[in-house]
Each structure stands twice: as structure tokens, then as C-alpha cells.
């Protein structure tokens, strides 16, 4: 250490986390997967606003919401809060 020690002026101001957390996929945490009827979705965006993960994306061109299963933790808030009740939580088959 001695001789090569940096002076305090050369050090970084604070500890820095170098990577965005979007590199860390949390999608494999889930037990249940949201499944929804795209035709019946009215695009009220209640699910997208209340999702804790930001895993529901508004596709303005299609006028529908889309799920990002890379981050969805399968909590089921979207299914519970959907105003037209078109989202349901399902357990995927193990064989698939």
C-alpha cells in the first residue's frame, strides 16, 4: 500500500454502483404469471401505474399494455386492480 496510496484528491467522491439494476433480471422469482386478454384490455393503465416493478409497458402504437416478463415478480397486483378484470394469474405447466 505505501508509496502507491492515492491522495484524497484523486479518490472518487463516494462509493459508486457502476451498473444499472436493469441488468439484474428478477423475472425468475415468480410463481404465478399474469395472463391477459389483449382484446378486452381498455388501456386504462391502472396496472401499469400500480406495478411495483415497472414491468408493464404502455405500447402507445397498439393502444395496449405489454408485460415485461424479465422483471415481473408475479405479485398479482395487476390482476387484482384491473378494472375490466382481464388479467388472471396462472401457474405455467412444469412440462413446458
Amino acid at each position, binding site marked *: 500500500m505505501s508509496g502507491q496510496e492515492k491522495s484524497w484528491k484523486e479518490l472518487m467522491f463516494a462509493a459508486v454502483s457502476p451498473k444499472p*439494476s436493469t441488468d439484474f433480471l428478477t423475472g425468475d422469482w415468480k410463481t404465478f404469471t399474469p395472463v391477459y386478454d389483449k382484446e378486452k384490455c381498455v388501456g386504462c393503465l391502472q396496472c401499469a401505474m400500480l406495478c411495483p416493478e415497472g414491468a408493464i409497458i404502455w405500447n402507445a402504437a397498439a393502444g395496449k399494455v405489454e408485460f415485461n416478463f424479465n422483471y415481473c415478480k408475479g405479485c398479482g397486483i395487476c390482476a387484482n386492480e384491473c378494472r375490466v378484470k382481464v388479467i388472471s394469474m396462472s401457474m405455467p405447466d412444469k412440462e413446458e
Partner: protein
Amino acid sequence: MTTSTPISQDEWKFTAKDAALRPDLFFSGHRACAGCGPATVLRLIMKATRGPTIVTQATGCMEIVSSIYPYTSWGLPWLHTAFENVAANASGIEAAVKAMQKRGKIKQEHIDVIALAGDGGTYDIGFQALSGALERGHDFLFILYDNEGYMNTGIQRSGATPTGASTTTTPAGTVQPGKLEKKKPLTDIVLAHDIEYVATATPYYWKDLMIKVRKGLEIKGPAFLHIFAPCPRGWRTEPAKTMEYSKLSVDTCIFPLWEVVNGKRALSTPSKIFQLSPQKAKPITDYFEGQGRFRHLFKPENKQLLDQLQEATNKQWQKLLKQCETP
């Protein structure tokens, strides 16, 4: 407050689609539990920012899950600090920004400073720093996300834990039915500092929440926002019902939504309904049901306590209505 200016009357207007298209400055991939209420709160807050913003955050669940090395969930300058001094830290940032603006080192007209803390970092540990910063009148927004306990360290009681709730340090049993003390009236204490903007919000009413965040940022001088954020792990509820409890807390008048602008207190729309038609308010048992921390209250021997809690809630609500009439 001599430095503050009244809030402009034209409110920030936006639709759900505008809000959904705003960039997410609190990234996905954070490691909060499934169904985390505070995570939704942070996403909504970050969507409501109006430009260059610096966030400083006290230790707590949301600090831990968003900054596990080498990952960070923050798309803006973010500074972690200890439990005690988040408000002091925000004061320092605000003062530094002001000094650098004076010397021409920063060109931006305004840089918003947000201090974030949980109920432990606000009600209990960080309280003196908050009080000091409010008294000095720094231009920052203090946001408290209240999940009613020290959830990060294993669900201990805090000053925000409501009466009757079972936590690991106030376990319900034969000796006592959960926490015996009342919840600290923090917003009233903050209001007593005579600051310009104090409001309460909850994530189910996300539009209301976002408008309140924007108002708090726009005002010059300190602003305080108390956000009620259900915690499925600590409250022992189903993750899917997080937002349902957020709604029920307002519907049962346990957590009424109001704001104080320029010293005048007014109920916000979701709570105003219960002022105009009180018969629509739900009994508190609707809110307690399904929450594991209140499960013991439904035992026959605790019936009396349940009645007392309903009475206390009604009393609080009536008091609030009076405060809204006469500021």
C-alpha cells in the same frame, strides 16, 4: 416563512398515458419483495419529477433493495446516508447547489432536492434532523414512505406502528394484544413548524400522489409528503392485495388524504367523498381483515379493543374535519 411564494393555482395536468410514457427513473430489477408498496411509491415519485433532481435517501428497505452493489436502480444523482441525517444531508445539498449557482458553476435555474426516508428514518431516528431542516427553511421536499414498522430489519415496532398491530417486538399473545401505544401524529408535528406545504398520499390514488409530489417540488421552501405504503411482508397480507389495502386505508378513514397549502387544510378528492356522504365510509374491520398483524383482534376477547379502535378512528376523522373548516 418569508422566502416562500404561494403555489400557483394552475395544477400540473396530465393523463394516465402521459404518465405511463414518462421515463422510469426508478429502474426495474430492484430487489424489493413481490407486491412491494413502497416500490410503486418510488416509481410514481420519480415519474413526477420536473427536471434536474438530486435524491438523498436514508437507510431503509428501499435504499437496500435499490442499491445492492454493483447495481443501482436510480436514473438520477442519488446519495445514500445514515438513518439519522437524511434531512441534514438534503440541507447540505440544497446549500451547495445555491452556492454553486451564485458562483455560476451551475447553469440550471432550479435543481430539486428530494429526501426520502421510511417511517423509522422519519418518526424515530431521523426526527431531529428533519425538525432542524424544516426550521432552517431549506428548499427541499421530504418524502416519508410509511409502512408502519422497521420492515427491513425484521418487522419491529416503530413510532408509526398503529395500536393493536402485532410486530416481532410487540407480539400479540396472552400478555398484550399487539402494540399498546398510539401512532405518533407526525404530520401534525411537521405542520406545527409552520411550513408551506404538507400533504398525505397513498399509491392507489396515484394521480393525486404525483400531483402532490410536483406541488411539493414547485414550492420554494421545505415541503413534507407523508405517503402510506402497505408492506405485504410486514403486514402479513397477500402480495396481490397491496393496493387494495392502500385504497381501504382511505375508505375506512384510517389514513385520510389531505393537503395544507399556505396554511389552509383541505381534504383531497378521495377523502372528500366521505365528508360529503359519511355513510359511504367503511368500518375499520374491512381494513383489518386479511392482515396477519391484526388477526388477533378478531378473537372474542379482543372485541372491546376493536370497538375502541373504531371509536378512536371516528374521533380522529371528526377532528380532521374540524381542522379543515377552521385552519
